[in-house]
């Protein structure tokens, strides 16, 4: 599994999913960069983890929970303060075509 390498097509695919527009130079740089990250994972994969349970998170306690109470008061003006465009108390975005 050594020398994982990401193709330029994979870079473009991921960029498109993330809605990123990349120049050719960006693509080359990211291809190298992402490949290095994967190679680091390869390095980790050399460790014997057969005795370790699959772990998504570290920490013993489960997620903390809150009581079901309404703690926020309506303040649409504050919420819309940084909106680039609005219509009344609604956010305005370019029309979505389905």
């Amino acid at each position, binding site marked *: 599994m050594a020398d994982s390498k990401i193709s330029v097509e994979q870079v473009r*695919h991921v960029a*498109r*999913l993330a*809605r990123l527009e990349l120049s050719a130079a960006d693509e080359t740089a990211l291809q190298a960069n992402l490949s290095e990250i994967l190679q680091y994972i390869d390095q980790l994969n050399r460790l014997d983890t057969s005795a370790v349970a699959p772990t*998504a*998170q570290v*920490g013993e*306690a*489960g*997620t*903390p*929970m*809150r*009581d*079901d*109470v*309404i*703690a*926020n008061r*309506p303040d*649409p003006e504050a*919420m*819309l303060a940084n909106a680039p*465009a609005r*219509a*009344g*108390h*609604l*956010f*305005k*975005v*370019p*029309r*979505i075509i*389905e």
Partner: protein
Amino acid sequence: MSDNAYEAIIGLEVHTHLMTRSKLFCGCSAGFGAGPNENVCPVCMGMPGVLPVLNRHAVELAIRAGLAAHCEIAPESIFDRKSYFYPDLPKGYQISQYELPLCKGGYIELPAHSEGAEPRRIRLTRIHMEEDAGKNIHESGASLVDFNRSGVPLVEIVSEPDIRSADEAGAYLRELRSILRYIEASDGKMEEGGLRCDVNVSVRKRGAAEFGVKTEIKNLNSFRFVEKAIEHEVARQIDILEAGGRIAQETHLWDPVREVTRPMRSKEFANDYRYFPEPDLPPLRVPPDLVEAIKTAMPELPADQRARFVRELGLTAYEAAVLTQDRDLGAYFETMLAAGLKNHRTAANWVMTEVLRVVNEAARPLADAAPLAIESGELLKLVETGAISLNAAKTAFAAMCKSGKGADATVAELGLAQVSDEGAIAAACDQVIAAEAAKVAEYRGGRDKLFGFFVGQVMKAMGGKGNPKVVNEILKRKLSG
């Protein structure tokens, strides 16, 4: 028709709101009816640097739903990020559960509508928790976004492909809604988006072992649309196969105006959600004693109530199924019986005809449209004791719906009480016999059929209020004598 050579394989994914006061990960109100973007905060708006904190009550309601559907409750489940871009999803991902959902397996049992029929079990794959998105309003030139629903707790209930027809899908949805209402996890109001459904449909030659290629129909928001969309999609797929074609694996949208499904414009990478564990939420740990406590506090479920109505009250399977479609209806029926009614099936039929009629006509909830259940019970009690006729009870009921008055007061006010007094009835009979001497002679000469005529005359003489049973008895005695 070649349709019978095929069978449909249907699985449903149902999304329903959980009835919490606040949202899933923040303290905003989850209620309906607020002005645009009033119930929002930095957490449910996806502002940088915020952290979600899980609503305990939402977890409890999801566990309740899981237990009601006979699921296994995972002692540890995790939340994942489901990534896609859409303006109503401010974080760019939805917090959902993917690999390790809260509830696994389970089943929904569909009521048997005929005697002796085996109830059908539709197996579940899973029930998981997730947050709702906001709402887009499309205008010419722009789309407007309201985030009030963003972060409202949902469960998604995923069935195995065990459903075989549009009717069965409808029965499954009705039973599921009924269960969710009984356990007060969801009000199941489709019109407010409280219950939404995606449908997976494929067809195969009857007896074939392998499934055909399936299509998905998205975002159906009424039971009727689900049934119609399935009927249409099954017919469409059979037509394609019969013509030698192949089914494309694609997502369809239901067009409720033209009543057809049409393929969604395929969005590139539409299904590349790149799920990964939500780093902001440690695993959800559910202690066994919490599950036990929820189990202990669980109300009676529709299936149990149905079985009890049949076993203890002597209702038919069909009557029991109708009365348990809705928690309020079942409760109404039981409260009526508390008036001391002996004839349970008369009470059941009263609910199914008179009460359901006014509810449907008024298009309002039972509690608003119908008189108090105990007053309905008192009214039927008057029928049982012979104080009024069943027809008079119906007249009184209609008046009670409008006036809100009780049974006794209404019967007295409208003068509906039956005359059972033997003296009064005997006098009316004597009067009729004296006036109809010729017919009496014919009757006594053997024309038995005339009996009905005499009953009619006596009732007429008594203004329709004679107790038919007593009238019959006295009349028979006098005519034969």
